């Protein structure tokens, strides 16, 4: 039993790890080529930083002890041996839980990066997620998943993180966007995805990893995780169909970007709810999420905030749909106005807290070291500005080809000279 749980959780953790690169590709394919690497790096840096914070104090703040249902303590800071040695034996349940939850803590800040695409300083972003994880994510994770967390105690259903992850990230993204402002050229210039197959690749890896995320959240391979897995697939499929149908009617085409976006919307919506509904309920949640999010992404043009890659439209809206709908669709007699009220309270609390604190953190950074890239950096592309790289070089020129016999022609701009090793 124990062994099967550990196998399940460790592998699920690896699958959730893969979601962050998946997200990087999902977002990275959607931006213009000149800032594609920056977009990828905004996710990858989270894999670096949060792994350190987690050991230093993150796990402890989220899951060790409790202060008024709001936050944990620092007993487990530094992850000392005594928290994971039980009678001299390694505590596999705790250790596997720790690595599993670490992956959630990595993914959540990375989710916000889509809203800030193409226009923030990389070092400032790194600082932002460091602070955000500390004062937003670790506490909220405590509220929702720790045994003494106030939302947990209230009986809010958030199986795998609709509030703690998606509403949290969506609201945080909105807060940061309001500080950082719009991309130069927003609403005027087209800013189309530079690589749609890469977007689909990201969506595919996310979808795959999400089985670890959703089913793994049960921490045991049992009936609940099986139901969750089935519902995850059903809701996601339904959301793909829902988004595409809406798009076909409204814009005359079934877009690839729509299919990918629909999948994510469905995955988001089923995250809090999937363990507590039956498959027909999952299908309904998926379709509603697909249609609603596909409508919601156009809000930014109307309301004028530049949530570049629609973190609000997909994660906040999708998270709300799942969190609220489960209030009515929950099985085992839990559905009803009361549960709905709890769900709404949980959603609103996290939303408000995350939005406000994220806004303030972003403001703090903007006022001190600056959050927004300079105009020249932004228009010239963040890849060169912060990473001193360009994404692609399909060129032949300057590559020493004597025969020059390759069928792929040569973008000669990549005429580079080495000066220093």
């Amino acid at each position, binding site marked *: 039993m124990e062994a099967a749980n550990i196998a399940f959780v460790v592998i699920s953790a690896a699958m959730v790890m893969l979601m962050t690169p998946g997200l990087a590709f999902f977002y990275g394919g959607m931006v213009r080529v000149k800032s594609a690497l920056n977009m990828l790096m905004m996710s990858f840096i989270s894999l670096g930083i949060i792994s350190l914070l987690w050991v230093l104090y993150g796990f402890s703040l989220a899951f060790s002890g409790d202060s008024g249902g709001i936050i944990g303590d620092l007993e487990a800071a530094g992850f000392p041996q005594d928290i994971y040695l039980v009678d001299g034996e390694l505590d596999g349940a705790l250790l596997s839980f720790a690595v599993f939850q670490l992956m959630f803590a990595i993914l959540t800040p990375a989710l916000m990066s889509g809203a800030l695409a193409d226009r923030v300083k990389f070092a400032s972003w790194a600082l932002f997620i460091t602070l955000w994880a500390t004062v937003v994510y670790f506490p909220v994770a405590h509220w929702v998943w720790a045994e003494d967390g106030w939302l947990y105690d209230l009986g809010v259903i958030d199986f795998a993180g609709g509030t703690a992850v998606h509403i949290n990230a969506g609201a945080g993204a909105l807060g940061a966007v309001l500080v950082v402002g719009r991309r130069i050229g927003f609403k005027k210039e087209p800013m*189309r995805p530079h690589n749609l197959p890469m977007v689909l690749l990201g969506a595919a890896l996310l979808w795959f990893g999400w089985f670890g995320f959703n089913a793994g959240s049960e921490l045991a391979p049992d009936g609940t995780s099986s139901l969750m897995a089935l519902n995850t697939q059903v809701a996601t499929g339904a959301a793909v169909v829902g988004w595409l149908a809406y*798009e076909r009617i409204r*814009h005359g085409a079934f*877009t690839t970007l729509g299919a990918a*976006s629909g999948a994510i919307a469905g995955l988001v919506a089923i995250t809090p709810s999937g363990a507590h509904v039956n498959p027909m309920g999952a299908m309904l949640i998926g379709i509603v999420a697909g249609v609603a999010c596909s409508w919601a992404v156009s809000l930014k043009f109307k309301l004028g905030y530049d949530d570049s890659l*629609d973190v609000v439209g997909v994660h906040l809206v999708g998270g709300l749909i799942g969190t609220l709908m489960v209030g009515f669709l929950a099985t085992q007699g839990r559905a009803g106005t009361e549960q709905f009220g709890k769900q709404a309270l949980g959603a609103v609390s996290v939303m408000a807290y995350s939005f406000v604190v994220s806004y303030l953190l972003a403001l703090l950074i903007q006022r001190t070291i600056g959050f927004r890239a300079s105009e020249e950096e932004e228009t010239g592309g963040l890849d060169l500005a912060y990473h001193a790289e360009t994404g692609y070089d399909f060129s032949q020129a300057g590559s020493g080809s004597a025969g020059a016999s390759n069928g792929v*022609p040569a973008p000669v701009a990549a005429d580079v000279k080495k000066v220093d090793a």
Partner: protein
Amino acid sequence: MKLITAVIKPHRLDEVKEALQAFGVHGMTVTEASGYGRQRGHTEVYRGAEYTVDLVPKVRVEILAEDADADQLIDVVVKAARTGKIGDGKVWCLPVDTAVRVRTGERGPDAL
């Protein structure tokens, strides 16, 4: 000498190449291009935002020719490139002062 430049539809490149070969011309230089003109572009949709793309892919072919052949060559290219639909492109002819074959340094007609 003359330099004939033809901006044509990409899928006519093969026909043009074959026509030139039949005429006895065995060299040309090809560049990708995009054209803007009477031919309309198309609409793309990304998350509900619709964009109009008004440049269409073209291929740009350059052929160095002797003065005497130029006029005939223009006709050959025009004929081979034609589909009769809008967007078939343009051919123009420029006077050339001198031309050199890099490998040998030959000049003028010998450079071809």
